[in-house]
């Protein structure tokens, strides 16, 4: 019991945010429920992002009825690779990534050959709501396949590593890279066994990693150090994340981005209830940083000023950056 109280106090002192605190003080306070559809539906997110001039993977087409499945060829055209996703899917379920064509068939990125009718069945499943939250009818979107930047080659296993930045009222507060592992089946989801690696907000250099709530330093599949990797275009990522506040109107979000080999930083999706493991990856609590942002916003409000995404990103980099690795 005494040990627990000690742990409690230690966590508090370090500003570690718990689920209750996140829900009460941030999610409930800053995220208006009416705006949830914007982040829950990837199509709406994408449309909003395009309208705001924010870079996203190019949308090839949307299929919303069984009849429209016929249009698949028309949508894809002669592009060799593409991705099919449920608009309201969760946890990366129902995503089909086609990497190449093989005769009349398709080849997924993991090398499996599938027929056209199998793709059509997958789309049909998406439409009936097999992968959507709560089993509602859903839409399928077909989009550009992201080719991860070679920088990640040494520290990830298959899949596409993504960059998660937590943004409070437009101010990035913490960032991490999520690296797929063999255990996570190439998915960049921490619950499924992907690695989270903290990132220094100022420089974009990776810190140590977390894997299933414990601290690690090497990628389990490639055995390369996950620490000390310089992420390219870091300032771009920061500004992109900061701009997402205007995009969706939610005050506390997790922005998931990827680094494409050809197109640079792209927004993948937004999350209204970002997880807390990012704290372990950064060896730092969220609460101190969010409080600093709240104080800063309060001060600006008193002055009647507001800042642009670029200014906000710079504030975050100056205030929270340059941490001891």
């Amino acid at each position, binding site marked *: 019991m005494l040990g*627990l109280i*000690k*742990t*409690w106090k*230690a*966590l*508090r002192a*370090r500003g*570690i945010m*718990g*689920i*209750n*605190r996140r829900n*009460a*003080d941030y999610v409930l306070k800053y995220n208006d429920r009416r705006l949830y559809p914007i982040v829950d539906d990837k199509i709406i997110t994408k449309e909003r992002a395009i309208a705001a001039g924010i870079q996203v993977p190019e949308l090839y087409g949307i299929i919303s009825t069984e009849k429209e499945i016929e249009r698949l060829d028309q949508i894809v055209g002669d592009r060799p690779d593409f991705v099919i996703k449920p608009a309201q899917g*969760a*946890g990366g*379920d129902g995503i089909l990534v086609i990497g190449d064509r093989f005769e009349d068939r398709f080849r997924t990125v993991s090398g499996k050959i599938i027929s056209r009718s199998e793709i059509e*069945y997958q789309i049909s*499943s998406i439409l*009936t*709501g*097999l992968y959507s939250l709560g*089993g509602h009818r859903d839409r399928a979107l077909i989009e550009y396949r992201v080719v991860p930047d070679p920088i990640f080659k040494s520290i990830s296993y298959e899949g596409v590593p993504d960059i998660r930045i937590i943004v409070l009222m437009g101010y990035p507060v913490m960032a991490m890279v999520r690296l797929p592992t063999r255990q996570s089946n190439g998915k960049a989801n921490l*619950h*499924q066994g992907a690695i989270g690696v903290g990132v220094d907000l100022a420089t974009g250099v990776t810190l140590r990693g*977390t894997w299933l*709530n*414990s*601290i690690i330093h090497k990628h389990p599949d490639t055995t390369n150090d996950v620490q000390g990797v310089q992420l390219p275009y870091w300032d771009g990522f920061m500004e992109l994340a900061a701009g997402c506040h205007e995009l969706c109107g939610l005050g506390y979000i997790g922005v998931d981005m990827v680094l494409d080999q050809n197109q640079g930083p792209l927004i993948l999706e937004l999350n209204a209830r970002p997880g807390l493991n990012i*704290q*372990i990856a950064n*060896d730092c*609590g969220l609460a101190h940083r969010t409080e600093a942002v709240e104080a800063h916003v309060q001060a600006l409000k008193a002055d009647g000023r507001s800042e642009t995404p670029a200014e906000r990103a710079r504030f975050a980099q100056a205030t929270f950056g340059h941490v001891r690795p």
Partner: protein
Amino acid sequence: MRSLTLHLKLLIMILVLLGAGITGYQIFVLGIPVSEDETDDLWNIDAKVEFVPTPKTPVKVQMYVPPLTSDYVSLNESFISNNYGVSVNRIDSNRKVTWSSRRASGNQTLYYRLVLTKRYSNEKPKYKGAMFRDSLVLEGPEKIAAEALLAPIRQHSADVETFISETIRRVNNLNDDNVKLLLAGDPSPQHKASVVDLLLSIAHVPMERAHTLRLVADQPQSPELWLRSFNGNKWLYFNPDTGEQGLPSDRLLWWTGDDPLVTLEGGKKVTVTFSLNNSEMNAIRLAKLTDESTDADFLEYSLYSLPLQTQQTFMVMVMIPIGVLVILILRNLIGLQTLGTFTPVLIALAFRETQLGYGIVLFTLITALGLSLRSYLEHLKLQMLPRLSVVLTFVVVLIAAISLLSHKLGLERGLSVALFPMVILTMTIERLSISWEERGGAHAMKVAAGTLLAASLAHLLMTVPQLVYFVFTFPAVLFILVAFMLAMGRYRGYRLTELVRFKAFVKDREADA
């Protein structure tokens, strides 16, 4: 806490006050027992009247019965007599039963039976009585003796109460010559009482004889004489032997006045014997009985005024918030992962019908089989609704099979699975399989175990008989529950499991130091 706004604080306070106030009122003012185990004495008094009738003459027996205006309330009263007409009438503050018969032969036995208990409500009936009376006429040596006695009594008393006490004490002093003279060699309690009466009448103090029965079980009883006097708002009772004031609480007033307990016309050798026994009775049942037999209706607006069947439903329903509270604490304070928010409560309700141990086995078995079916159906690539229908049908067949099997094996328990748990089982299987797919088997197992644990805990708490009774009898405690839930709505501290989850931070710090 910073974020606990004034509004919420006020709301919580109002709810707590409301809950505590209503419950307090029920307990302390209405006197509703706090626990079901609380029992009250229930007295069963039999008065047996025996006599030998004179042949060929009409028989009329009159006996006083308790007026029941005091602290006791009658639950049941019966006059057991063959071939006798019975009538009860009220004379002043007394009640009298009259048995009458045209003719009777042989030894006669009549019974009067009274079942009574202490009055529940605190309301005292209004008393009235005389406060003044004329002196009895006294002459010769008696007059002198009485005055000689009264003089020191007047000196040693301050008011009516002490005057009476003093008088009784003096009359009980048999060595006093004046007392000897007045008693005239008959020191029986009855005679002493009339001497006291005489003395008091000279001082114009009214006095009445009160005949009481002592409520003690399994001892032969006879009416006990007390003297009482009215002081303006209540009766003061005096022990005629010692002059002590105050009627012990176990005395039941049977009748007042100078007349004997029983009078008989057309017979002889009348005797009355009392026998008493007490039984303990569940206090709330007793309260319900008194409610029916009196006008006191303190249970009028409680759930007890509902029809019995509805009451039973409510006994389950009022416990649901308790179950929800358990889930709330387990999830938000402990951080246990459960399947959905209220599925554990539903499962806990289902356990009511299956019993806990058997319920856990049954749920695990059916869920495991259902999950394997679900994963098989996954290969068939079915749409959601048909798939759910198949799983539900499978669950029905499975339960039927288990019931049949256990029936054949002689285990009647298998049949206790009712309609209600079926849908819950299907939903559990569906949700579990979804979380299995999305989060993997280990996570699904963890969630399933958490759900089962939460359901068991909720079930155990929801079936504690004392708690069920308390919540059912004092539903206002639900307000306090709501207040707690509201406060929990703004709880921002860590969950217990988070202390473990973020342990890496603490270890790190220690390593650095």
